[in-house]
């Protein structure tokens, strides 16, 4: 058991150690300072900008930024939808796949545009190589870059700067951050065993019985795999995602994928600290999601290590829960991956969450309810600071001072925007469609596991959609018209309403006259204030969802203790 905890602790240590370097690098990129890749990338940026018709000096207001983001995302949505529907006639289709149903293609397109990558299909059997690399792989870059751009605009607004230009931020996120790391990462993953080929599946007679053949699905996986994790996308090339030996063949690739998943959302907090010129505050803010992350990992890992008491009785020994897990990852790396991927809204899985013990279900669901345990690409960081603004407001009320954050007054408009995007949109996008689906368990829900776990399956699917995570309790029969359309609603509501609110919030913060700090100013870079913020996060973010947690994983845990049957 100790060996497992050492792996977990060292992985966390690596994540923390690279944070300041990566955060500083991103700050340099978006502050327009020199970086070591400039000599190569500066001319490339210029070409892309001029071909796109974008002028770098042109600033945008919050609303203009939001409109540019919506126009560009809509264009990409239509574009990839057309690729899916026409894939039968397009090249790089060695298995001769035809177009999927319109609702599945629509759900997939929305799911990838929103950086969610919820998959109601299996990659091997549904989308051609071309659809995978030219449509899904494309969105993995642009949806991640959209998230980073929004976070940077938000940070700029919060620190009193003009918001910048959406297209410049989008393009630089790709050319300066996502693409260079992906190229290096793809080469490393290829060397470690991940395929990168345009050849179709290999059909080979099996060793034990040559009358039976095995179909080994393959494809251009390595280049796709790295951006899948780095961009917090999470959509597997194969149906079974990073549990597939071709997506994640060994402990080394697993480590790379884990670190890639958390690297950007953790580092963006430090990027904020450099923009705000207050690294102390950045590290204090960092400590909130980090502490929650560590607690969640411990809960999940203990549950998987102890295993299923009913099964252990049959085995006559204590054994970890290995249902839906690969031998090479075992309980420790599987639990760690499950927490990382739901904390960060990546959604890749290296083991099947549906088969996790109820403790794992509790943690993965809670991660998606909170959305700030580092959170989604860019959006998680922005939510964290929205919570900070709410905490300033709450503490301001308690001590009777005008709430201020970074020397700017928090007024009605900011509180309305912050509370709307955090307190209202998320529960609406999860709980209302869940209630509708559960009202028709036979016709709509497609539940595959009986009892309390069935409720968790439905809640998980909508939580994953609304939080733009993309993982699932995959037993759920979700490849239906109802599921495709209703989760599309949650995907869109959970992505664009908060993003537009964040940009408007940033805009109004950037326009305020700074107030000089006095002895009466509430300091936001103290341990006390950080503690209050953590409390606000847990109360506002988690309490809404406590009833469904009680009815889902908590009740299931008691059911298992009582005995199955």
């Amino acid at each position, binding site marked *: 058991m100790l060996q497992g905890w050492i792996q977990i602790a060292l992985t966390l240590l690596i994540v923390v150690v690279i944070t300041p370097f990566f955060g500083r690098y991103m700050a340099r990129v978006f502050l327009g300072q020199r970086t070591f890749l400039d000599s190569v990338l500066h001319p490339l940026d210029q070409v892309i900008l001029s071909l796109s018709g974008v002028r770098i000096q042109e600033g945008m207001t919050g609303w203009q930024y939001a409109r540019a983001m919506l126009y*560009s995302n809509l264009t990409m949505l239509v574009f990839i939808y057309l690729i899916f529907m026409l894939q039968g006639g397009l090249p790089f289709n060695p298995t001769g796949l035809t177009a999927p149903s319109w609702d599945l293609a629509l759900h997939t397109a929305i799911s990838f545009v929103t950086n969610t990558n919820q998959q109601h299909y299996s990659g*091997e*059997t549904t989308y051609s190589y071309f659809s995978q690399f030219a449509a899904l792989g494309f969105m993995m870059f642009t949806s991640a870059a959209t998230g980073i751009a929004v976070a940077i605009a938000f940070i700029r607004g919060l620190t009193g700067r003009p918001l910048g230009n959406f297209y410049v931020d989008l393009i630089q996120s790709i050319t300066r951050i996502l693409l260079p790391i992906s190229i290096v990462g793809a080469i490393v993953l290829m*060397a470690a065993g991940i395929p*990168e080929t345009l050849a179709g599946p290999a059909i*080979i007679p099996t*060793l034990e019985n040559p009358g039976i053949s095995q179909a080994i699905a393959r494809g251009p996986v390595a280049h796709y795999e790295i951006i899948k994790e780095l961009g917090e996308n999470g959509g597997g090339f194969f149906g079974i995602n990073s549990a597939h030996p071709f997506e994640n063949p060994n402990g080394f690739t697993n480590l790379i994928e884990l670190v890639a998943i958390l690297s950007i959302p953790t580092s963006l907090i430090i990027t904020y600290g450099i923009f705000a010129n207050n690294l102390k505050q950045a590290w204090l803010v960092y400590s909130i999601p980090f502490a929650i992350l560590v607690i969640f990992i411990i809960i999940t890992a203990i549950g998987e290590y102890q295993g299923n008491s009913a099964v252990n009785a049959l085995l006559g020994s204590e054994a970890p829960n290995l249902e839906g897990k690969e031998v090479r990852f075992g309980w420790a790396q*599987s639990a760690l991956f499950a927490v990382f991927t739901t904390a960060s809204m990546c959604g890749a899985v290296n083991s*099947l969450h549906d088969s996790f013990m109820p403790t794992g279900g509790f943690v993965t669901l809670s991660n998606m309810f909170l959305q700030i345990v580092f959170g989604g690409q860019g959006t998680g960081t922005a939510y964290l600071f929205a919570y900070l603004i709410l905490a300033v407001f709450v503490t301001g009320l308690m001590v009777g001072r005008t709430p201020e954050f970074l020397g700017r007054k928090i007024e009605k408009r900011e509180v309305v925007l912050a509370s709307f995007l955090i307190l209202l949109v998320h529960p609406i996008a999860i709980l209302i469609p869940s209630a509708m689906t559960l009202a028709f368990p036979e016709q709509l829900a497609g539940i595959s596991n009986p009892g309390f776990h069935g409720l968790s399956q439905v809640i998980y699917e909508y939580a994953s959609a609304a939080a733009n995570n993309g993982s699932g309790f995959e037993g759920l029969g979700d490849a239906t018209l109802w599921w495709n359309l209703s989760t599309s609603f949650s995907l869109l509501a959970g992505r664009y309403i908060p993003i537009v609110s964040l940009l408007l919030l940033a805009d109004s913060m950037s326009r305020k006259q700074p107030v000089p700090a006095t002895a009466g100013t509430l300091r936001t870079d103290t341990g006390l204030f950080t503690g209050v913020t953590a409390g606000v996060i847990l109360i506002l973010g988690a309490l809404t969802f406590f009833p469904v947690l009680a009815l889902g994983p908590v009740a299931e845990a008691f059911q298992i203790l009582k005995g199955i*049957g």
Partner: protein
Amino acid sequence: MSFAREASRAIRSTLVLWVITALIYPLVMVAFGQIAFPFQANGSILTNAQGQPVGSGLIGQPFTSDRYFNSRPSTTSYSTADPANDEASVLKTGISGASNLAPSNPDLLQRIQETTVQLQQAGIQPTADLVYTSGSSLDPHITPEAARAQIARVARARGLEPNQLEDLINQNTAGRFLSIFGEPGVNVLRLNLALDALNS
């Protein structure tokens, strides 16, 4: 700003970024992989002495007989089918999948009970990895304990010494990365290929 200008920027930037990230990047990576790492890039396909492909070094195969070390139970039978009778079109694309049974699902318990009985009848002490189905249904590994639990049976079926098999297991065990990350696993296909080579 006019609608036309806004739409034109959205379309033009989409096309430029598409060419870079969705055409140039993947195709250059494929070319690089085919030149620099042809073995890994094509799926780590293993061949026998005659140069015939026998499987992938990263993907498991079904083994259930006494003469071979058995692999983990799989929900897709390791993406295999009878070529003459492949109604589910498994061999057209290859598949992966998992049971997705919840720990509280009585079906899980019943399945494990049946597997446990089968293993005991075959004289194998059940281990967790041999009764739980894997995540991908293609898991190439079993734990070293599960391999050692099968030594007696394979040794009897093949007329080999148990310590010979012990050596083969050690040779075909992939350790942790840097002895730290991941769990050790015995590659069942490689182990069984080595077993056949020993007999011939």
